[in-house]
């Protein structure tokens, strides 16, 4: 990758990040739109949880990350702190991978 390509990548990424913020600005939105936007994080992060667990090279696979996600789910359910959730997921995944 050249420096020019890297510059284009950075500019494109920034444009995507700025688009939503700039387009909406400070305008008040109709309540229906507001309601969809309030639900947007739940839908996006719901998808990201499962995609980052089961996706590998644009295919669905079951690998030791599942064990990590289950450990994280237990930790979240027990109201553990953020770092505990992360460490639980990483250590159980590493352990599962050692014996998979």
């Amino acid at each position, binding site marked *: *990758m*050249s420096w020019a390509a890297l510059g284009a990548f950075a500019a494109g990424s920034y444009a995507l990040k*700025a688009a939503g913020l700039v387009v909406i600005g400070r305008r008040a939105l109709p309540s229906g739109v*507001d309601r969809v936007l309030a639900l947007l994080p739940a839908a*996006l992060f719901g998808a990201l*949880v499962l995609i980052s667990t089961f996706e590998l090279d644009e295919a669905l696979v079951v690998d030791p990350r599942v064990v990590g996600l289950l*450990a994280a789910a237990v930790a979240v359910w027990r109201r553990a702190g953020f770092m505990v*959730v992360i460490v639980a997921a990483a250590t159980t995944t590493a352990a599962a991978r050692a014996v998979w």
Partner: protein
Amino acid sequence: MSPTPHEVRRAAVLLGAAVGLVGISFGVVASAAGLSLPMACAMSVFVFTGASQFAAVGVLASGGSSLAAIGSGLLLGTRHIAYGLALHRVLPLDRWRRLLAAQLLIDESTAMATAQPDPRVGTGAFWWTGASVFVCWNAGTAAGAAFGDAIGDPSTYGLDAVFPAAFLALLAPHLRGHPGRVAAALGAAIGLALVPLTPAGVPVVAASAGALLTAILVGRNDAPGASSTAPER
């Protein structure tokens, strides 16, 4: 009970530290894909979007062109448009701060900010999380790219499970109310179903339809738990 600003700052710093671990894996992967140390570091500073960076470097590692790498990275980044829209209530800022906020607009800062019931706490959560992740992600990238050979394969340490776990922890506050649970389930189903069918990046963006469907299908107050647990900000 909503978190205090102090608790939010603490969570932001811990989240940054966790993302720093992922930053180390990015540095290792980037250097294995042939990126020089300055280039890996520059990408983390200026692109600053973990998932897009991993996607781009993954394409390079598998022998793809720079154009294909950027294309897949940008496609994955299209969800940031939705994040910007979702943050409109949390970030009532002037134009210049918005331009700075845009660079720090990532999965983690969006999730932390939108998880706070009080918009003012959410604004603080955005800046603290964005700054903390920025520092740790870049430090991690530099360390991973510099010492990649000594570290070896990051997945040996289970670092590939850090993302799902972090997203789950960030999703949890949105699951308190019925509409949030429906939106999460629909988004997850749509996203997962599209993974084998569409290029990387499309499934997450398409998952936005889960929010739209939920708003149409689930009534404002008629759902069990919706009125008592008050999921809306």
